[in-house]
């Protein structure tokens, strides 16, 4: 698209294909179209970044009230900064056409998932729901109601799987039927309208919770709760019909989740959860309940140096929790207790005297069945003491398992004081509950429980005068990176605190799955960069090819194969003079087709000083095995990091930047003062039959190797 010397002169009313500029945004293409306008891919030429540009269409923008409301609400939403709400960079108006510039996201909307009509795994639903509710809560706290929560307005980012709410506050109509359209077209999405929306009543935050309930129902059941063929039928069903319970439609849906969804789908707002914040706690509680009832425990490989862990994300577009252990657990997690029925509607059917005397209808509360085990009184546990053991996790990467060891001592002076003796019929004598509280610069937060208490049966209670080492593990998936105080509470089985012990834990950002929004990517294709590979049996380099080969071959007497190493040179540009500001870094690679399919380990070394800044990747002066550091003692070079990747079935091939290598070694190397250029040597440290193939800058500039750098906040 040709640039225009006078960008502002162009009108946003032109079709996207002819639209060159909108203010300082250069339109690069069309991303989609919604009820209110177009979404365009554009470049902010001032900040040199790509954005998603939402432009209100003429039909809406011609109404002054709609236009102003669009601008007002967009500006309000722009003030919401939350991981689960799309970031709005700018809200403006040009030529009478309102627009907003938003972050350009990778991934897809939830619509592409629900379109398959298949139920999703419970764990994934809960995880996604928790994120969406968190985003909704942030907006609701500012008085912003979305009004159009539906799968098409929920984005699942890749590769992190993070859910983001799009299009906050942009439904402009007060009712479901558009009065400006003679055909009575619907504003909003009929299947997701709340009853109060269908009635055209004033909305509050609980309308969004209803619509979210529809989305969760759809994820759990693979269908809408109240499907209808026509708009009138849809409205009638929303207002007057009760949907079947999710666990009736899909027996694999746990009762606790079905109860939660049904409460969200209550016809009356007062019968739903009071707020997104309250709903968030309910979702967390459902997750805890299900976890408690599941005997399966996910095991995660934990290395001794969490900060040096190098991970490769699963295949992009893969769905977290789909299949595998999560699915297998689904049928085992139905809680023993059940909430009878959904919430009761409060339509009154009598005179006011009658009506005013009716007991307020409230959602039924879950009732725990009476315990079948003997009661353990907290005072019988006074002789038990917790103490610390040095062998504990002090650092962990977000999402992985934190492991602690505590010592439980029994200080009973005589057998009659021994808790095991005092509680002869108890199957559980005590429990250790874990509470974590953030204590770093982000502030001292409220304590939360990252997992369920560790139950201590009689066999785990030491004899009087002795102590027992007990492992306490918990997953950090729900905790933000930061510094935490960890409290282990010794409790009676009913939760009464009888003692505690505190420790600390640092949770590091998991760069294997995090979004790289704040990172600047420097590719080998940048002017001054280079990429090539050398082979042990060749006296030339291979810098002109479309891919790089990296290989440590299996030794076969009849089929000798040479080792192959890759060299990557990056021109850091402005980063060269601000290296002291570097916070985190990654080396990013895109695997090409035709290479090794399976597991492989890549190790990176820093060879900038050995190579100098000017080595050539091809031609007569191109480096080869003998003229490169490959001929030397590789292990003596600065170690930058290692990544274990799994390309089974070619799942990583052509997934842009899917191979991520990161760690303190790489961070430190890039922070060191070494001029504008850095060179990295990549070798394979396991053996395989075929070499790995990495897309080179000659193969595809946009997929060429990159270092991603982020400045300190």
């Amino acid at each position, binding site marked *: 698209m040709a640039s225009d010397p006078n960008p502002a002169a162009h009108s946003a009313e032109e079709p996207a294909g002819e639209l060159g500029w909108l203010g300082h945004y250069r339109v690069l293409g069309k991303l989609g179209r919604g009820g209110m306008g177009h979404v365009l891919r554009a470049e902010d030429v001032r900040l040199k970044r790509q954005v998603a540009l939402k432009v209100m269409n003429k039909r809406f923008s011609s109404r002054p009230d709609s236009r102003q409301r669009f601008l007002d609400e967009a500006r309000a939403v722009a003030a919401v900064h939350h991981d689960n709400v799309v970031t709005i960079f700018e809200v403006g108006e040009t030529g009478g056409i309102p627009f907003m510039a938003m972050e350009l996201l990778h991934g897809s909307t939830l619509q592409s998932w629900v379109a398959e009509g298949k139920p999703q795994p419970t764990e994934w639903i809960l995880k996604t729901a928790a994120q969406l509710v968190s985003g909704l809560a942030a907006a609701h706290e500012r008085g912003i109601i979305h009004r159009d929560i539906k799968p098409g307005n929920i984005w699942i980012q890749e590769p992190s799987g993070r859910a983001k709410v799009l299009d906050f506050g942009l439904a402009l109509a007060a009712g479901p039927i558009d009065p400006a359209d003679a055909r009575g077209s619907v504003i909003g999405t009929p299947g997701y309208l709340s009853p109060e929306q269908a009635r*055209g*009543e004033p909305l509050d935050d609980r309308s969004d919770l209803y619509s979210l309930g529809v989305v969760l129902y759809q994820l759990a059941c693979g269908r809408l709760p109240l499907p209808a063929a026509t708009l*009138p039928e849809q409205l*009638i069903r929303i207002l007057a019909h009760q949907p079947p319970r999710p666990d009736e439609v899909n027996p694999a849906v746990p009762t606790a989740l079905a109860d939660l969804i049904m409460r969200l789908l209550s016809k009356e707002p007062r019968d739903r959860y009071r707020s997104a914040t309250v709903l968030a706690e309910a979702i967390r509680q459902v997750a805890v309940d299900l976890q408690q009832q599941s005997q399966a425990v996910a095991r995660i490989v934990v290395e001794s140096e969490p900060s040096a862990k190098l991970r490769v994300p699963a295949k992009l577009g893969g769905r977290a929790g789909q299949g595998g252990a999560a699915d297998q657990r689904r049928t085992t997690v139905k809680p023993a207790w059940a909430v009878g029925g959904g919430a009761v509607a409060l339509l009154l059917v009598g*005179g*006011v005297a009658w*009506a005013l005397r009716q007991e307020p209808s409230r959602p039924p509360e879950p009732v725990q069945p009476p315990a079948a085990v003997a009661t353990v009184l907290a005072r019988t546990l006074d002789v038990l003491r917790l103490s610390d053991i040095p062998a504990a996790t002090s650092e962990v990467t977000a999402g992985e398992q934190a492991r602690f060891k505590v010592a439980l001592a029994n200080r009973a002076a005589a057998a009659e004081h021994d808790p095991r003796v005092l509680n002869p019929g108890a199957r559980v004598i005590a429990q250790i509950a874990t509470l974590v509280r953030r204590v770093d610069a982000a502030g001292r937060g409220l304590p939360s429980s990252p997992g369920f208490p560790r139950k201590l049966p009689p066999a785990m209670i030491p004899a009087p005068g002795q102590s027992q080492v007990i492992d306490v593990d918990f997953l950090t998936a729900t905790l933000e990176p930061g510094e935490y105080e960890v409290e282990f509470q010794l409790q009676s089985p009913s939760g009464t605190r009888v003692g505690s012990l505190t420790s600390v834990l640092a949770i590091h950002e998991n760069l294997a799955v995090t979004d790289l929004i704040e990172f600047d990517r420097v590719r080998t294709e940048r002017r001054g960069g280079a990429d090539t590979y050398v082979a042990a049996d060749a006296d030339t380099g291979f810098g002109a090819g479309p891919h790089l080969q990296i290989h440590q071959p299996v030794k076969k007497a009849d089929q000798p194969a040479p080792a192959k190493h890759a060299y990557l040179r990056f021109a850091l540009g402005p980063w060269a003079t601000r290296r002291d500001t570097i916070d985190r870094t990654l080396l990013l690679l895109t695997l090409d087709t035709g290479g090794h399919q399976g597991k492989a380990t890549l190790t990176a070394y820093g060879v900038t000083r050995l190579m100098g800044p000017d080595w050539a990747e091809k031609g007569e002066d191109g480096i080869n095995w003998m003229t490169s550091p490959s001929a030397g003692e590789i292990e003596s070079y600065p170690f930058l990091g290692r990544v274990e990747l799994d390309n089974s079935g070619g799942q990583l091939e052509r997934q842009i930047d899917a191979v991520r290598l990161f760690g303190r070694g790489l961070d430190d190397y890039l922070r060191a003062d070494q001029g504008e250029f850095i060179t990295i040597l990549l070798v394979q440290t396991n053996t395989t039959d075929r070499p790995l193939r990495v897309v080179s800058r000659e193969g595809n500039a946009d997929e060429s190797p990159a270092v991603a750098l982020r400045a300190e906040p």
Partner: protein
Amino acid sequence: MSSTWSDNADHTTAGAEVDAANLSLQTSPWTEAHNAAGFVLRYLIPMREQLIHGLGSEPLADECLKRIISHLVAEGFGSHARGRLRDFLMRAIRSAAKTLVAEQAGTSGPLAQSLQVDWSQWTVDAQSWRDQWRAAVLARAWRTLERREHQDRSTPLYSILRWSSAYPRETPTMLAIRINTESDVNVDAEMIARLLPLARRRFAQILLGEIVETLDDKDAAAVEAELAAIGLADAVAKLRNG
């Protein structure tokens, strides 16, 4: 119209809040609604209940409603936009039901023989219809009061009125204990004693606002007549007195 309805019974210290509630009386009548179908959806539940009551069939009731909504989307209220909305809607559901029953009678479907409809019960003043209408108006008023409490939880008028209505013999102290125990609203006896009269007046005003919207005439006599017709006159009078 000769005079508009107003609530002169409010003499509380929270007069400003009550004045705000009076705004509902200034809304336009149903005949001026921009969106006929959207407006009528507010009363879909009593229409459906009445259809089920008359036809004995939920699917047939829903089919009638679909036709009514589609007609309103296409035609609006047309030349029938006058008088009481309650009457208009009864005529609409009767017309739709008669058409549907006639269609069924002309078929060999299973409903053709079983549909025995007593059309004498489908009048604008039928007791069942007035009962349905009263329930709908009350439900809308409760919903409005609760929505306002949700927006401003410092003045829990809905909770106080709802619980005091459910337990009218309890003292403010007992009621406070019950509300605090059984709901997530925090009140004390003094607050209940102070806010209950206001809650009653507010509820009455909301009810009146609902009634006014269903009439094409805001004349006080017309409003009082409608209150009496649907059996709310005495209740509203008591509520207005706090």
